[in-house]
């Protein structure tokens, strides 16, 4: 059974620092093949038989966890899940203890979500096996960016030279950070836009603007981010109506972008806040496609992180 093999992939998926463009492209190509599996009546292949994957979520998330767990099961891996909130006094200790305990039980890969940034990076020092970052604080959410890239390529073809606008609470968004890291690797130009209080001082990989018109002008795709209402309590936003007045993506404002420019949102959505009315259900919206593609992309991530790396 000798046939073309892809060159070694990084052991972990923490962010994209260790990944090359060609590795990302191979992974997205694998995800394409996984879509065929998901289109079958029986959506299951034996590829990861004998592997055990743990989802370890220190921050609540239903969608991402279910997407990962289904991805693992569709490839015949065994899945265990740990979900727990951590008291803020002894966070470091608790993360480490929990993971070291699981490490003694023969886990082959960890899918890790934490509210604190950088924990997955620390974790790979505590663990012998691969770590997949499923979101750490505001820092990174690489599989979300991969599924966004996959969805964008599905609609736009190559991302070379394409302008992608990301709109909303950029400051607190790991989705924005990971997309700003990944999309330029695939040739795209990222413009991040939001009110000044919700923009970071800088965002590597993206240019920043407070002008929605400037962000959307000639954009090939528009990604709206979830606005977390608790931000208002901290005084970062004067009021919801003001945000909506200046930054809601409306049918009319979408006219600034290229005709047919698709609309993305990582979910969960606040209807009538980030997006106007029924825009999320319009043919331009790729929101449901993103969810469906998430599973195929995560199957591809598990394949590349696990296969050939048992020991």
């Amino acid at each position, binding site marked *: *059974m000798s*046939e*073309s*093999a*892809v060159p*070694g*992939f990084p052991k972990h998926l923490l962010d994209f620092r260790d990944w090359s463009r060609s590795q990302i492209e*191979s992974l997205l*190509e*694998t995800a394409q*093949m*996984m879509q*065929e*599996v998901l289109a*079958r*009546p*029986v959506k*299951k*292949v*034996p*590829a*990861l*038989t*004998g*592997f055990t994957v743990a989802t370890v979520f220190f921050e609540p998330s239903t969608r991402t966890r279910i997407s990962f767990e289904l991805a693992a099961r569709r*490839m015949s891996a065994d899945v265990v899940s740990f979900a727990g909130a951590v008291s803020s006094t002894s966070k470091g200790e608790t993360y480490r203890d929990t993971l070291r305990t699981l490490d003694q039980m023969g886990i082959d890969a960890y899918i890790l979500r934490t509210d604190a940034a950088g924990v997955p990076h620390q974790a790979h020092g505590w663990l012998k096996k691969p770590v997949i970052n499923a979101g750490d604080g505001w820092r990174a959410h690489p599989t979300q960016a991969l599924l966004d890239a996959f969805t964008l390529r599905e609609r736009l073809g190559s991302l070379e030279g394409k302008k992608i606008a990301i709109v909303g609470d950029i400051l607190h968004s790991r989705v924005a950070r990971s997309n700003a890291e990944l999309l330029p690797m695939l040739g795209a130009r990222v413009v991040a836009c939001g009110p000044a209080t919700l923009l970071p001082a800088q965002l590597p990989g993206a240019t920043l603007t407070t002008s929605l018109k400037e962000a959307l002008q000639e954009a090939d795709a528009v990604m709206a981010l979830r606005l977390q209402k608790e931000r208002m309590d901290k005084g970062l936003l004067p009021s919801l109506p003001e945000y909506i007045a200046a930054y809601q993506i409306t049918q009319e404002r979408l006219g600034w972008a290229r005709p047919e420019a698709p609309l993305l949102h990582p979910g969960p959505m606040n209807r009538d806040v980030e997006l106007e009315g029924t825009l999320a259900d319009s043919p331009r919206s790729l929101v449901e496609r993103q969810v469906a593609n998430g599973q195929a992309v995560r199957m*591809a991530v598990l*394949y*590349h992180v696990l*296969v*050939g790396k*048992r020991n």
Partner: protein
Amino acid sequence: MTFKSKLLNEDEVRRALTRIAHEVIEKNKGTDNLCFVGIHTRGISLAKRLVDLVEKFEGKRVPMGILDITLYRDDLTEIGLQPRVRETRIPFDLNGKAVVLVDDVLYTGRTARAALDALIDQGRPNRIYLAVLVDRGHRELPIRADFVGKNLPTSKNEVVKVKTQEDDGEDAVELWEMEES
């Protein structure tokens, strides 16, 4: 790897495929429910030829699919390399069909085993046949081919290379020898 000899030339490959096409039609008593599924990479090119030949002899084009067995390999927990996952596309209903699985070389039988699992996951054919251009022996599983272009006894340090016009620019079967390690 060093080249040892050419086992089949272009004409011999064509004759072998022509004979296989006739045998398939004879065994299936025509083209009813017949279909071909080629295994990556060269099995796909060979399956296309067989579909063309069947059409030429019987005047009917039978459906064809392509199959990648990577996700069905039995060594994914062991190997050091990551095999590329390639396209699987079976654009017709397998239920009730007589499927001819096509591969270039039959060797250990592990590819055929994986292909059977991959196929059965997608439907319930009435019958699955295996057609190969070369059977080189050294089976590790209880698997045999129904249609064989050429039986070639080989030693384990030899490599049988099937070349096709589509993939390699010429039709040929060659014998190579692996370097002593």
